[in-house]
């Protein structure tokens, strides 16, 4: 009896987690998907009525703003973070004396909650008392920096704060990648007389392709989940100018009592993440099992 138990123990150990994942991840996704095809408002109804929630969603100006913001924010956030991270990593790779301290400073924002980040930047970008006011006090009377309350520019403040928080992480990732390149290849290039910048552009950076991919995946994941940052920084405003799918979903679910809309917007978010992450995971797992 105990032999049987011993032999199957590994399965028993993993079973609770497996069941939990089945229910709380896949089961719940299924529930949300189901509800997204119903007429649910405050309470869930389970009769499938078709795609009316998605129709409403795509016709909603608020959702349109949210999706546009996701593109704008997402692309800027990812591109700037990657660029900044790469530049900083390359610079830090040049045998800097206080590298450890600098690295720590660049990376600490990642340890903060996005609420803290949002709160801090909300203060800094405050038109009346933040940077705008300070620069004005320095004598530049006509300086304006009211992006935070400007419906057209507000989304860029989210980019600013987001990049501040995450570029250090990208830098750390790239720095590790830069250093993982085989020393001997670099030495051979140096002996060949290739200038340093060329060594970077022709040898080191191309060999870091998988790390670019990892950074892209993590950053896009962060971008899609961006909820805390927007809530703290702009509250979704002014109006709903800085709404993102994540804040849209939350508002629908808990403020508006429109579960059908909440579910459909959540499923759209799920679909976007799915199309980015699944190919990546698939190729990663295949590579690991080879």
């Amino acid at each position, binding site marked *: 009896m105990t032999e049987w138990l011993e032999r199957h*123990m*590994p*399965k028993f*150990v*993993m079973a*609770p*987690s497996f069941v939990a994942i089945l229910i*709380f*991840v896949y089961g*719940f*996704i299924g529930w*949300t998907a189901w*509800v997204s095809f119903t007429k649910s408002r405050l309470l869930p109804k389970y009769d499938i009525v078709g795609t009316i929630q998605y129709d409403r969603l795509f016709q909603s100006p608020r959702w349109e703003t949210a999706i546009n913001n996701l593109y704008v924010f997402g692309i800027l956030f990812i591109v700037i973070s990657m660029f900044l991270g790469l530049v*900083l990593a390359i610079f*830090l790779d040049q045998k*800097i004396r206080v590298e450890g301290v*600098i690295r*720590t*400073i*660049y*990376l*600490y924002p990642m*340890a*903060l*909650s*996005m*609420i*803290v980040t949002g*709160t*801090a*930047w909300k*203060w*800094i970008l405050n038109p009346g*008392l933040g940077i705008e006011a300070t620069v004005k006090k*320095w004598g530049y009377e006509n300086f304006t920096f009211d992006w935070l309350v400007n419906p057209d520019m507000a989304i860029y403040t989210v980019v600013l704060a987001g990049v*501040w928080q995450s570029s*250090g992480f990208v830098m*750390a990732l790239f720095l*590790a990648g830069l250093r993982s390149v085989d020393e001997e290849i670099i030495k051979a290039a140096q002996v060949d007389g290739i200038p340093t910048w060329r060594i970077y552009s022709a040898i080191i950076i191309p060999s870091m392709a*998988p*790390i670019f991919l*990892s*950074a892209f*995946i993590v950053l896009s994941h962060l971008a899609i*989940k961006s*909820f*805390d940052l927007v*809530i*703290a920084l702009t*509250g979704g405003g002014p109006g709903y100018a800085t709404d993102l799918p994540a804040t849209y*979903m*939350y508002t629908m*679910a808990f403020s508006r009592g429109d579960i059908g809309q909440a579910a459909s917007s*959540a499923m759209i*978010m*799920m679909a976007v*993440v799915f199309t980015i992450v*699944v190919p990546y995971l698939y190729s*990663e797992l295949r*590579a690991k099992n080879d």
Partner: protein
Amino acid sequence: MTDLSNPHMAKKQSFGTVALRWLLYLFLGLFVVYYLMPLFVMVTTSLKSLEEIRTGSLVALPRVITFEAWQTAWSSACTGIQCEGLQPYFWNSVLLAVPAVILSTLIGALNGYVVAQWQFRGANLIFSLMLFGCFIPFQVVLLPMARMLGLMGLAGSIPGLIFVHVVYGIGFTTLFFRNYYVSIPAELVKAAKVDGAGFYRIFWSIFLPLSLPIIVVTVIWQFTQIWNDFLFGVSFSQAGTQPITVALNNIVNSTTGVKEYNVDMAAAIIAALPTLLVYVVAGKYFIRGLTAGSVKG
């Protein structure tokens, strides 16, 4: 690399290199300012009086240092109807984070141990399913989880939040431990089997003593994630059981009365201190945790 055969050439080159070095340091220094500035502003603002904030400049040091804002933030700031400051919510976060971190780490360790060293049919499939679960946007489980917590009688409670964080944390913790345990030679398990040790014995006597580095990484990662979380906190708690991030947001975004910016900043710093401290003390392990799943290999 300097061509020493031509001294004139050499000198010219070294001047160029020195200039470049200075530019490099300047550039890096600029970014040090960029990253530190918000922290600097937060701290200085929290130490100023409201009067000084209104009349002074954002980046100026406080003329008169006052800790009043901190006092208010900790014990009397208003988070909606209650005005007890951050203090009770700080402890909420502690009560939430400590058990959640311990549980998710323990479960992850056992799961990782199984996947890495005890193959059984379907183990890899289960692992892949768990891994995918790490990547989902949590918006897609918010609604059903809210209902489920209600059904379990855990709605708006700290045990409920602990439950949520553990369930959605085991994907990552399993990944961390599995990647670590995979590099422990399988022959060790074989030798222990020949010696008569069973599943738990082998874990306790052989794997656990080897696990300190990965336990530290996992604990730091989980603690940071859970302490900093807002989404689960705001969705599944109610007044009284809210974690500190939710309370902070309430303080900052409360529409009643005068906006006390110094209190807001003090509150933000209080909320950030634990994870910031962990980062400063054990940052090396934190970075390892960040890059553990991301970098190949």
